[in-house]
Protein backbone atom coordinates (compact mmCIF):
# COMPACT_ATOMS: atom_id res chain seq x y z
CA UNK A 1 0.00 0.00 0.00
CA UNK A 2 1.27 3.39 -0.96
CA UNK A 3 2.37 5.86 1.73
CA UNK A 4 0.84 8.67 -0.25
CA UNK A 5 -1.91 10.69 1.42
CA UNK A 6 -3.01 12.97 -1.37
CA UNK A 7 -5.12 16.08 -0.89
CA UNK A 8 -6.75 17.49 -4.02
CA UNK A 9 -7.77 21.12 -3.54
CA UNK A 10 -11.17 22.21 -4.80
CA UNK A 11 -11.68 25.92 -5.45
CA UNK A 12 -14.92 27.25 -6.90
CA UNK A 13 -14.13 26.85 -10.61
CA UNK A 14 -11.62 23.98 -10.36
CA UNK A 15 -12.35 21.51 -13.15
CA UNK A 16 -9.45 19.04 -13.21
CA UNK A 17 -9.88 18.02 -9.57
CA UNK A 18 -11.64 14.72 -10.36
CA UNK A 19 -9.05 13.78 -13.00
CA UNK A 20 -6.26 14.22 -10.45
CA UNK A 21 -8.29 12.39 -7.76
CA UNK A 22 -8.78 9.50 -10.17
CA UNK A 23 -5.06 9.09 -10.81
CA UNK A 24 -4.12 9.10 -7.13
CA UNK A 25 -7.07 7.06 -5.88
CA UNK A 26 -7.56 4.52 -8.66
CA UNK A 27 -4.31 4.37 -10.64
CA UNK A 28 -1.82 4.76 -7.78
CA UNK A 29 -4.22 3.18 -5.28
CA UNK A 30 -3.39 5.91 -2.77
CA UNK A 31 -5.37 7.34 0.14
CA UNK A 32 -6.86 10.44 -1.54
CA UNK A 33 -9.19 13.16 -0.29
CA UNK A 34 -10.62 16.36 -1.63
CA UNK A 35 -9.80 19.52 0.35
CA UNK A 36 -12.32 22.36 0.14
CA UNK A 37 -10.92 25.88 -0.28
CA UNK A 38 -12.56 26.94 3.00
CA UNK A 39 -10.86 24.18 5.01
CA UNK A 40 -8.54 25.52 7.67
CA UNK A 41 -6.01 22.71 7.70
CA UNK A 42 -4.25 20.15 5.48
CA UNK A 43 -4.83 17.33 8.01
CA UNK A 44 -2.64 14.26 7.59
CA UNK A 45 -2.06 14.83 3.84
CA UNK A 46 1.54 14.51 2.58
CA UNK A 47 0.98 15.62 -1.03
CA UNK A 48 -1.22 18.58 -1.93
CA UNK A 49 -2.34 19.08 -5.51
CA UNK A 50 -3.72 22.36 -6.85
CA UNK A 51 -5.61 21.24 -9.97
CA UNK A 52 -6.40 23.01 -13.21
CA UNK A 53 -9.49 25.06 -13.84
CA UNK A 54 -10.60 28.64 -13.38
CA UNK A 55 -10.47 29.28 -9.64
CA UNK A 56 -12.82 32.12 -8.69
CA UNK A 57 -13.59 32.59 -12.38
CA UNK A 58 -10.01 33.79 -13.04
CA UNK A 59 -11.27 37.22 -11.96
CA UNK A 60 -8.68 40.01 -11.64
CA UNK A 61 -5.77 37.70 -12.62
CA UNK A 62 -5.57 33.91 -12.84
CA UNK A 63 -4.93 32.60 -9.32
CA UNK A 64 -4.97 36.04 -7.68
CA UNK A 65 -8.07 35.51 -5.55
CA UNK A 66 -7.32 31.87 -4.72
CA UNK A 67 -4.18 32.93 -2.92
CA UNK A 68 -6.25 34.47 -0.12
CA UNK A 69 -8.49 31.45 0.47
CA UNK A 70 -8.28 30.00 4.02
CA UNK A 71 -6.80 26.72 2.75
CA UNK A 72 -3.99 28.46 0.78
CA UNK A 73 -2.68 29.93 4.04
CA UNK A 74 -2.32 26.42 5.38
CA UNK A 75 -0.76 25.17 2.14
CA UNK A 76 1.91 27.88 2.38
CA UNK A 77 2.76 26.65 5.90
CA UNK A 78 2.64 23.02 4.67
CA UNK A 79 5.13 23.87 1.88
CA UNK A 80 7.37 25.78 4.31
CA UNK A 81 7.52 22.61 6.46
CA UNK A 82 8.73 20.71 3.37
CA UNK A 83 5.36 19.24 2.30
CA UNK A 84 5.03 18.29 -1.37
CA UNK A 85 2.86 20.68 -3.40
CA UNK A 86 1.96 20.19 -7.08
CA UNK A 87 0.29 22.97 -9.08
CA UNK A 88 -1.05 22.04 -12.49
CA UNK A 89 -2.15 24.76 -14.95
CA UNK A 90 -4.36 27.06 -12.83
CA UNK A 91 -2.57 25.52 -9.83
CA UNK A 92 0.76 26.77 -11.26
CA UNK A 93 -0.75 30.25 -11.60
CA UNK A 94 -1.91 30.11 -7.96
CA UNK A 95 1.58 29.04 -6.79
CA UNK A 96 3.18 31.97 -8.65
CA UNK A 97 0.64 34.41 -7.22
CA UNK A 98 1.29 33.18 -3.66
CA UNK A 99 5.04 33.44 -4.16
CA UNK A 100 5.66 29.73 -3.53
CA UNK A 101 7.16 29.72 -7.03
CA UNK A 102 8.97 32.63 -8.74
CA UNK A 103 7.64 34.46 -11.80
CA UNK A 104 4.19 34.86 -13.33
CA UNK A 105 2.08 33.44 -16.16
CA UNK A 106 1.13 36.02 -18.80
CA UNK A 107 -1.38 35.88 -21.62
CA UNK A 108 -0.30 33.51 -24.42
CA UNK A 109 1.68 35.50 -26.97
CA UNK A 110 -0.77 34.59 -29.78
CA UNK A 111 -3.73 35.68 -27.57
CA UNK A 112 -5.40 32.30 -28.07
CA UNK A 113 -6.55 29.64 -25.67
CA UNK A 114 -4.44 26.67 -26.77
CA UNK A 115 -5.78 23.16 -26.30
CA UNK A 116 -3.57 20.45 -27.81
CA UNK A 117 -0.99 17.81 -27.04
CA UNK A 118 2.56 19.14 -27.05
CA UNK A 119 6.02 17.64 -26.75
CA UNK A 120 7.89 18.37 -23.53
CA UNK A 121 11.56 17.85 -22.79
CA UNK A 122 12.59 16.69 -19.33
CA UNK A 123 15.28 19.22 -18.38
CA UNK A 124 16.17 17.79 -15.00
CA UNK A 125 15.35 14.28 -13.83
CA UNK A 126 16.99 14.64 -10.43
CA UNK A 127 13.83 15.88 -8.80
CA UNK A 128 11.15 14.01 -6.88
CA UNK A 129 8.74 14.95 -9.68
CA UNK A 130 10.75 13.69 -12.66
CA UNK A 131 12.92 10.82 -11.35
CA UNK A 132 11.08 8.24 -13.45
CA UNK A 133 11.92 10.04 -16.71
CA UNK A 134 15.20 10.05 -18.61
CA UNK A 135 17.18 13.28 -18.91
CA UNK A 136 16.18 15.13 -22.12
CA UNK A 137 13.47 12.52 -22.66
CA UNK A 138 10.66 13.78 -24.87
CA UNK A 139 7.11 13.15 -23.69
CA UNK A 140 3.67 14.05 -25.03
CA UNK A 141 1.37 15.90 -22.61
CA UNK A 142 -1.76 17.98 -23.33
CA UNK A 143 -1.95 21.69 -22.61
CA UNK A 144 -5.13 23.75 -22.27
CA UNK A 145 -4.60 27.36 -21.24
CA UNK A 146 -4.92 31.00 -22.26
CA UNK A 147 -2.36 32.34 -19.77
CA UNK A 148 0.62 30.02 -19.79
CA UNK A 149 3.32 32.36 -21.00
CA UNK A 150 5.92 32.03 -18.23
CA UNK A 151 7.75 35.22 -17.35
CA UNK A 152 10.27 36.27 -14.73
CA UNK A 153 12.85 39.07 -14.55
CA UNK A 154 16.48 38.52 -15.54
CA UNK A 155 17.85 38.06 -12.03
CA UNK A 156 15.19 35.45 -11.25
CA UNK A 157 15.90 33.67 -14.53
CA UNK A 158 19.63 33.43 -13.70
CA UNK A 159 18.68 32.08 -10.30
CA UNK A 160 16.21 29.41 -11.46
CA UNK A 161 18.59 28.28 -14.19
CA UNK A 162 21.58 28.11 -11.82
CA UNK A 163 19.55 26.16 -9.25
CA UNK A 164 18.32 23.64 -11.85
CA UNK A 165 14.73 24.61 -11.06
CA UNK A 166 13.49 24.21 -14.63
CA UNK A 167 12.07 20.67 -14.93
CA UNK A 168 10.11 20.73 -18.20
CA UNK A 169 10.52 22.76 -21.40
CA UNK A 170 8.39 22.86 -24.55
CA UNK A 171 10.06 21.31 -27.60
CA UNK A 172 8.09 23.77 -29.76
CA UNK A 173 7.11 26.81 -27.66
CA UNK A 174 3.33 27.25 -28.01
CA UNK A 175 2.69 30.29 -25.80
CA UNK A 176 5.72 32.58 -25.74
CA UNK A 177 7.13 31.27 -22.44
CA UNK A 178 10.54 32.58 -21.48
CA UNK A 179 13.21 30.02 -22.48
CA UNK A 180 10.41 27.56 -23.44
CA UNK A 181 9.68 26.95 -19.74
CA UNK A 182 6.73 24.61 -19.09
CA UNK A 183 7.36 23.63 -15.45
CA UNK A 184 9.59 24.69 -12.56
CA UNK A 185 10.27 23.67 -8.97
CA UNK A 186 11.14 25.84 -5.98
CA UNK A 187 14.61 26.13 -4.44
CA UNK A 188 13.73 23.63 -1.67
CA UNK A 189 12.56 21.19 -4.37
CA UNK A 190 9.25 20.28 -2.74
CA UNK A 191 6.95 22.51 -4.83
CA UNK A 192 6.37 22.18 -8.59
CA UNK A 193 4.22 24.15 -11.00
CA UNK A 194 3.60 23.12 -14.59
CA UNK A 195 1.18 24.29 -17.27
CA UNK A 196 0.75 20.91 -19.07
CA UNK A 197 -1.73 18.37 -17.70
CA UNK A 198 -0.06 15.03 -16.85
CA UNK A 199 -3.36 13.82 -15.33
CA UNK A 200 -4.87 13.87 -18.82
CA UNK A 201 -2.18 11.47 -20.05
CA UNK A 202 -2.00 8.90 -17.27
CA UNK A 203 -4.53 6.25 -18.21
CA UNK A 204 -4.32 3.76 -21.08
CA UNK A 205 -7.96 4.32 -21.85
CA UNK A 206 -7.02 7.90 -22.87
CA UNK A 207 -4.38 6.63 -25.31
CA UNK A 208 -1.38 8.28 -23.65
CA UNK A 209 0.37 7.37 -20.40
CA UNK A 210 3.39 9.71 -20.57
CA UNK A 211 2.03 11.68 -17.61
CA UNK A 212 1.69 8.65 -15.36
CA UNK A 213 5.41 8.59 -14.54
CA UNK A 214 5.15 12.13 -13.17
CA UNK A 215 2.72 10.93 -10.49
CA UNK A 216 4.67 7.68 -10.05
CA UNK A 217 7.91 9.64 -9.44
CA UNK A 218 6.40 11.79 -6.75
CA UNK A 219 4.61 8.91 -5.04
CA UNK A 220 7.79 6.80 -5.03
CA UNK A 221 9.61 9.68 -3.35
CA UNK A 222 7.54 8.92 -0.25
CA UNK A 223 8.46 5.21 -0.13
Amino acid at each position, binding site marked *: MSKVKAGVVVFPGSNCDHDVYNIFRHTLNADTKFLWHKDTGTGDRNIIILPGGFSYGDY*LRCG*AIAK*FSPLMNEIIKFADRGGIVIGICNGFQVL*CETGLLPG*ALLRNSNLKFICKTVTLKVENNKSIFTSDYGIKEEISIPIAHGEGNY*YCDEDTFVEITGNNQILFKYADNPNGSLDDIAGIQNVKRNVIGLMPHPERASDEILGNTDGYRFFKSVSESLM
Partner: protein
Amino acid sequence: MFISKINIRIRDTILDPQGKAVEHSLQSIGFNSVKDTRIGKYIELKIDASTEKEAGKITEEACRKLLANPVMEDYEFEIFPFGEKNK
Protein backbone atom coordinates in the same frame (compact mmCIF):
# COMPACT_ATOMS: atom_id res chain seq x y z
CA MET B 1 -15.26 59.29 1.84
CA PHE B 2 -12.82 59.08 -1.08
CA ILE B 3 -12.62 57.52 -4.53
CA SER B 4 -9.38 55.92 -5.72
CA LYS B 5 -8.96 55.64 -9.45
CA ILE B 6 -6.39 52.97 -10.17
CA ASN B 7 -4.70 52.13 -13.47
CA ILE B 8 -2.86 48.84 -13.79
CA ARG B 9 -0.70 47.97 -16.79
CA ILE B 10 1.67 45.21 -17.80
CA ARG B 11 5.23 46.47 -17.25
CA ASP B 12 6.70 48.47 -20.14
CA THR B 13 9.51 45.93 -20.51
CA ILE B 14 7.04 43.07 -21.08
CA LEU B 15 5.41 42.45 -24.45
CA ASP B 16 1.69 43.21 -24.33
CA PRO B 17 0.27 40.96 -27.08
CA GLN B 18 -3.24 42.37 -26.67
CA GLY B 19 -1.92 45.92 -27.10
CA LYS B 20 0.04 44.81 -30.19
CA ALA B 21 -3.04 43.23 -31.79
CA VAL B 22 -5.10 46.38 -31.20
CA GLU B 23 -2.25 48.56 -32.47
CA HIS B 24 -2.07 46.57 -35.73
CA SER B 25 -5.82 46.88 -36.09
CA LEU B 26 -5.67 50.65 -35.56
CA GLN B 27 -2.92 50.97 -38.16
CA SER B 28 -4.83 48.83 -40.63
CA ILE B 29 -7.78 51.24 -40.54
CA GLY B 30 -5.54 54.25 -41.12
CA PHE B 31 -4.29 55.37 -37.71
CA ASN B 32 -0.72 55.35 -38.96
CA SER B 33 0.45 57.81 -36.35
CA VAL B 34 -0.27 55.28 -33.56
CA LYS B 35 3.13 53.88 -32.65
CA ASP B 36 2.45 51.93 -29.47
CA THR B 37 -0.60 50.58 -27.67
CA ARG B 38 -0.72 49.25 -24.13
CA ILE B 39 -3.87 47.79 -22.62
CA GLY B 40 -4.43 47.72 -18.89
CA LYS B 41 -7.27 47.74 -16.44
CA TYR B 42 -8.99 50.44 -14.49
CA ILE B 43 -10.31 49.90 -10.98
CA GLU B 44 -12.28 52.28 -8.77
CA LEU B 45 -12.48 51.93 -5.00
CA LYS B 46 -14.80 53.88 -2.74
CA ILE B 47 -12.97 54.19 0.57
CA ASP B 48 -14.29 55.18 3.95
CA ALA B 49 -11.28 57.14 5.28
CA SER B 50 -10.98 60.43 7.12
CA THR B 51 -8.07 61.89 5.12
CA GLU B 52 -6.78 61.67 1.57
CA LYS B 53 -3.48 60.41 2.93
CA GLU B 54 -5.19 57.52 4.72
CA ALA B 55 -7.17 56.63 1.58
CA GLY B 56 -3.90 56.66 -0.37
CA LYS B 57 -2.27 54.32 2.13
CA ILE B 58 -5.17 51.87 1.91
CA THR B 59 -5.13 51.98 -1.91
CA GLU B 60 -1.38 51.40 -1.99
CA GLU B 61 -1.71 48.35 0.24
CA ALA B 62 -4.65 46.97 -1.79
CA CYS B 63 -2.60 47.31 -4.99
CA ARG B 64 0.43 45.66 -3.47
CA LYS B 65 -1.44 42.76 -1.87
CA LEU B 66 -4.07 41.93 -4.47
CA LEU B 67 -4.96 44.33 -7.28
CA ALA B 68 -1.60 44.28 -9.08
CA ASN B 69 1.06 41.59 -9.42
CA PRO B 70 4.42 43.35 -8.95
CA VAL B 71 6.19 40.63 -10.98
CA MET B 72 4.48 41.75 -14.18
CA GLU B 73 2.40 44.87 -13.55
CA ASP B 74 2.84 48.54 -12.65
CA TYR B 75 0.10 50.60 -11.07
CA GLU B 76 -0.69 54.24 -10.44
CA PHE B 77 -3.64 55.89 -8.78
CA GLU B 78 -5.27 59.17 -7.91
CA ILE B 79 -7.50 59.93 -4.94
CA PHE B 80 -10.52 62.23 -5.15
CA PRO B 81 -12.94 63.30 -2.44
CA PHE B 82 -16.24 61.49 -2.98
CA GLY B 83 -18.75 64.17 -3.95
CA GLU B 84 -21.76 65.00 -6.09
CA LYS B 85 -19.95 64.83 -9.42
CA ASN B 86 -18.52 61.34 -9.01
CA LYS B 87 -21.35 59.67 -7.15
